[in-house]
């Protein structure tokens, strides 16, 4: 008899898995939210060459100015980066934000041409051709944006392109000094 019950095991497993999947789907969790290891900690070390040849390399000193800084990893081959680009132009021009751009796994010439074509929202831009800085920052892809406060602590981390709601709900309050 116990042999027979054993045959029910696959069915039971299936029911369990289906139940788990249904629960995961219906709980209303954002499947894109995978958390971030850097939020609440000092900004990871940064030491990369400047995108514009002949300019000083980008280092941690950028986060010690006492002002909040946005760090945006982008690439010219990335379509969502194009979609969020006007938002950074606006942040720079209307909110006076300091935005640091990092061209991730992107050839220097292509990234520069991209910025020339679209407009350059970055105060300084660096080149992370090998993606090593991306590893330090816990990057999963581009575009991703980090908000670093005046003390060099990462406060916000956006995976994926920024949208209007991110700006009004988090980024602009953050720049105004209201750390969420």
């Amino acid at each position, binding site marked *: 008899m116990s042999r027979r019950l054993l045959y029910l095991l696959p069915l039971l497993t299936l029911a369990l898995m289906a139940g788990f999947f249904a629960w995961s789907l219906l709980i209303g969790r954002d499947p894109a939210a995978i958390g971030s290891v850097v939020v609440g900690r000092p900004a990871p070390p940064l030491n990369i060459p400047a995108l514009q040849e002949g300019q000083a390399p980008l280092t941690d000193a950028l986060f010690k100015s006492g002002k909040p800084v946005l760090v945006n990893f982008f690439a010219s081959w990335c379509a969502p980066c194009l979609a969020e680009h*006007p938002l950074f132009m606006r942040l720079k021009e209307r909110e006076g934000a300091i935005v640091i751009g990092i061209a991730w796994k992107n050839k220097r010439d292509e990234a520069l041409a991209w910025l020339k074509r*679209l407009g350059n929202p970055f105060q300084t831009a660096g080149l992370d051709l090998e993606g090593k800085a991306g590893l330090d920052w816990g990057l999963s892809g581009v575009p991703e944006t980090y908000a670093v406060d005046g003390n060099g602590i990462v406060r916000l981390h956006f995976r994926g392109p920024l*949208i209007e709601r991110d700006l009004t709900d988090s980024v602009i309050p953050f720049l105004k000094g209201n750390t969420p």
Partner: protein
Amino acid sequence: MLELVLALLSAATVGVLLIPLLGSRFDAKSRFEGELGIYRDQLAEIERERTNGILAESEAAAARTEVERRILAAADQAAAVPSSKPPSTLHKVLPPGLALAVPLLALGLYLQLGHPGLPSAPFARGSAPAEEPHMDIARLVVEARARATEHPDDPEAQAALGEALTLEADGTVTQPALEAFNKALQRNPGDPRTLYYLGLHQAQSGDSAAALARWRDLLTKYPDAPFAPGLRAEIERVARAAGVDPGLPPAPTGPSREQQDTMAKLSPAERQQAIRGMVEGLAERLKENPQDRAGWLRLANAWKVLGENANAVDAYVHADSLAPVDARQLADWAEAYVRQLKPGDPPPPAAVAVLERLEKAEPRNGLALFYLGAASFASGDKQAAARRWKALLSRLPPDAPIREMLEQRIKEAEAK
């Protein structure tokens, strides 16, 4: 054709499955009987060899005992297997039933969800160039940039450059495009194209509220423009993304889906008749509700398309009395007037009034220049006629067919 092949394949597969299922099946009993046959043969063999003297008596007895022992073991085994009872009906029916049900179910689903009548799309057509010539955006940008550099003060050239740069960036209004549009706006503050793209830039840079306000203004100003449906869709899209109410004015009612379908089935003459009937219906409704300015403009356009220019003029007069019409509508209105003229006739005073308004709105409008010239000529103001016609002549392409006639008339105007 493909359907037939697939049906044959399915039928063959099901057939292969069904043949053994419907045939007789082994059970323990028949197996035991088969074994028994073998042992019977072996016993006969031993007996034969004993009589022929190949086997000794004692050896034959040992071999016989061995075979008998095996027979007993096989009988025990057959008795131990419980399935000696005949298989139940369920076991008999279920496998062939399933083998038939799966393809039948698939067929039913396909008829429900699929489109058996859909023509196939051959690979050759997919890889062939599209019917429309492919727009070479890079060339478009180069040309637009050249024109904008050549005419830095022409709002049209600047707006075209902005549009080209936006197309180049897959629909993102880039910083250089924005600069071009701002230049265009300075020279021509009401240009709908510039206003649309500036709104798009606002939407893309996270200011949906400003974009929506700008676009709603634009839509209120041009409720019947050809771009109005597209603009509506854009307003709805941006409003949905921002999670706000689009606040759209109600759309002008066009023919319904069913009406369009019926129209498509009619012969050209019948269709013309049906269109005329609809336009007359609109005219009737407007008689009852004469305050509907958009309705009058729609009616004017419909009459003009049908060639009823006098009716079109009448509808434009109604629309204009509610609120002055814009330059594009003035041009249509004036055209409806002059289409009623015999060649060479000067336009009547009412038409001259409309043409003068058109000339004021668009000083370089060819229609206004030509017919106001004719009116000036008829009223004796030859100088004004020659000035207008010369202005028109300078704007005509070198191979325009009316050039010769125009030069002739300028000569006449200057001679007397």
